[in-house]
């Protein structure tokens, strides 16, 4: 039995990558900023394990979808900033579409679409 707050949902496997890419669409950002942004934009529903964020960032960097550079944050701290690359943009578009289809299909199969209309 989980003792966690029921309104919070742990991330599904494989969803973190697309979320990271999406967050970087608005400009470069450092790891902590990305984690924060996901939490805020999901209105605190999605829970990002900060520890698993970095391996994910590393994976995306290895795939060439994002690039990184050391810089300074707005409060003058050194941080590693990530930026979406050209292929990363394409990847995001593709994965977004896949997610839409998946979500629609899941919804239809689980009977949510009908009950909604």
């Amino acid at each position: 039995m989980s003792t966690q707050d029921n309104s919070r949902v742990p991330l599904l496997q494989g969803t973190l990558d697309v979320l990271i890419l999406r967050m970087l669409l608005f400009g470069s950002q450092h790891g902590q900023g990305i984690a924060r942004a996901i939490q805020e934009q999901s209105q605190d529903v999605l829970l990002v394990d900060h520890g698993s964020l970095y391996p994910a960032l590393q994976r995306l960097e290895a795939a060439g979808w994002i690039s990184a550079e050391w810089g300074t944050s707005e409060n003058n701290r050194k941080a590693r900033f990530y930026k979406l690359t050209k292929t990363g943009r394409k990847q995001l578009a593709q994965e977004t579409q896949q997610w839409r289809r998946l979500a629609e299909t899941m919804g239809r199969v689980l009977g949510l679409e009908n009950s909604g209309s």
Partner: protein
Amino acid sequence: MFFRRKDADFQQEIQAHLDLETDRLIAEGMPPSEARAAAHKTFGNVLTAEERMHERSRWMWLEQFVQDIRYGWRGLRKSPAFVATTVLSLSLGISLVVILFAIFNAYVLRPFAVRDPYSLYRIGWNAPEAKGTHFSWRDFLELRGRSDLFDDVTAERIALANSGGRTLVCAFVSGGYFETLGARLVLGRTPAGNEEAVVLSYEAWKLLFQKNPTIVGQTLDVGRRKLEIAGVLGPAFTGLDDSPRDLWVPLALYSPMAQVNLFDPKEPPVLNVVARLRHDVTAAQAQTALTPFMARMVSHPNTSVRAEVTLQATPVTLSLDTLAVLSAPLAAFLLVLLTACANVSNIMLARANARFREISVRLSIGASRGRLVRQLLTEGLLISLMAGILGLALASIGLQAGVDLFVGALPPSAAASIRVVPLEFDHRVFLFTLAAAFGSTLLFALAPALQAAKLPLTDALRGHSNDTRTGSRLRSALVASQVMVSLVLLVATITLARSARALGAADLGIDRTAVVTIRPRVNESPMLASASAALSFDPHIESVAAASIAPLSESSRKIAVSAQRGAGTIGAPYTFVSDAYFQTLHIPILRGRGFTPAESKAEANVAVVSAAAAQSLWPNADPIGQFIHIERPEGQAKDELPGYDAAVVIGIARDVVSTMVFEGPASAHVYFPTNASSSHASVLLARGWSPQQIRPEITQAILQKIHPEPTAFQVMPLEEALALQMFPIRITSWIGSLLGGIALALSLSGLYAVLTYSLSQRRREIGIRMALGASRISIVRLVMAQSMRLAGVGAAIGILLAAGIMKGLSSVVELRNVVFIDMASFAISLTLVLTAALAASLFPACRATGVDPGRTLRVDN
């Protein structure tokens, strides 16, 4: 990411993250001390994140591999006995397959050491009932003119020549042979087309001149001719097929040396032709283009002749047939490697169990099971690499010894002209050894590694080894299968050895002692008659006969004969023999009489039939005086058949083995009269007064009076002809015994290891039994029963498998005189295996009784 990201860089990033998060939390109003802790809490385990980052980097596997090797090496150094047993048994198995592969490589895989070997093609022709690869000089010239198909065409004629009492394999080659092939010389030059000069093979240079570097320009006596030594070839090139030559001589010298006019259109074709195909022509195109030429050349009536253009880049062309022939020895050799793997696997299983403490500590402090399996596999890899190196050394020694043994075991008359292709180890052999080592690692190390990694953590933490049931079952299965393999190999070997003995002792129907066959090598017509006359006047010789074929070395041609024209035809081998034939070979005439000298001389239309032929042609009548009718098949050359179509039967001879011993006596045999001067006769058979008086040297000395060339006649004792027939069987049974012996030794050591190990696990149990009053005998019986169960199961499956294999063999190989399902062989093998298993378990069993019950019960473990 083209370079590896530094761990420090990553640590810095995480630090930055924590700082930013803390800043944020403080900005949200959290007290600084709590903010730091909260940031850490949301991040989770920093160390794990760092570790995961580290493991993702691409060099990780190498780093772990190096670590595993270092660790494995340390572990192996600590247990030299374990290393010695495993490396030794594995290297035995590896060396055997490497030997087999080295032979396969030398004959089938390694291309000739010439320029562009894959454009070399052998030219031949093929008709429905005949084929050939021999061409006359004129055919060769015509082929050489086909520049639309070939870049170059070479011709070659192999002949034996005598040089100072030694028989040399001599290749007479067309002009431009060496230029076309581009084989490398180590000394001198290649001779011009009509020069009286030779090129020596590397082996001949070594054998005849001990690698004397100043040999070029000296002369060599070849068949009573002094030839200048022009050059010496490198060791890699020995000729364009599977039998190495000793020297190369210009083809222009063939006619004077062999005393045959090669350029005479009436001479039979003797040249082998190898051509370099043009690069824009395929073999199939050349075949089509040459077919009209072949049809004209062969001029065989009513047959469709096709040209054959086959790749000749290696001594033996790789084909399904070659593979089929090789599959049986390959299977046997692989089985031995498998037994060796089973052995090592078994020892590793036992070791993994003995190492359970170490493994459990590693598991409990967080080693992943995958990593553990990898570590144990790496250890296996180290063992098999060592075994591979040792196996390569063993294979090299074994191969040399094997070749020496092979050549030494050949009958002397064959040994003079049989050469073995150089069997050195090249990159293919090294790669194969490496592959064999890797493959066997997977075979022997994977199961123990998986087994060890399955160790339940609870057991591990308790520090208590419960030898898992699957582990001991796996070990038992391995031992049982070892016993099975050795039994199969032993059954095959013993059956073979027993049939060889039975064949050697078989009654052939002819008396082969003190008889030699004499065959002229030089093609001069009065040779046979004068030799026959010379021999019959010699005091050493009891009798001389002429025949169309030599018994025990050539197969007789067959004709269809019948008792009445057109009815009840049977196919029977036939031989033309002179009047002294039956007497020379001691073949009894059962009824009637043999040929008279007059009938021989006149080649009269009379016949002697074998008892079996008489029985099948005239089952109810007296054959003597009957006519035997000869059905003349269309297209058969006239000079091969009697000049008449019916003959009077004058005698019945005893059934004899006409050609191959393992085919048994011929079901029917017909003899027709001939004499030494006739074209039907091609060999002489001479019987001496004793085996001593008919030694080949003595016979050769008599024959020298006819022809001064020592190699003009081939003289071979009938005993040697038989030995030559038996040679493949003998060699196979030797190899089989070697394999069976090694497999048996391996499975016994496997059995021994398993018993020793399981007894060390059962010390407590045995102690308790003894404390409760079990006698020593009952303990021995307990251990023996365990070993006999293992050996028994293996032997039972082995017997079934062997019976299946032998049954399969007997349906594939049709040898009438060989018994495949030989009960005695099965019984002997079974007794041997079970006795050996008993002996191997006796020592562990006796040691088990030495367990001190008092001590074992006190000790916790």
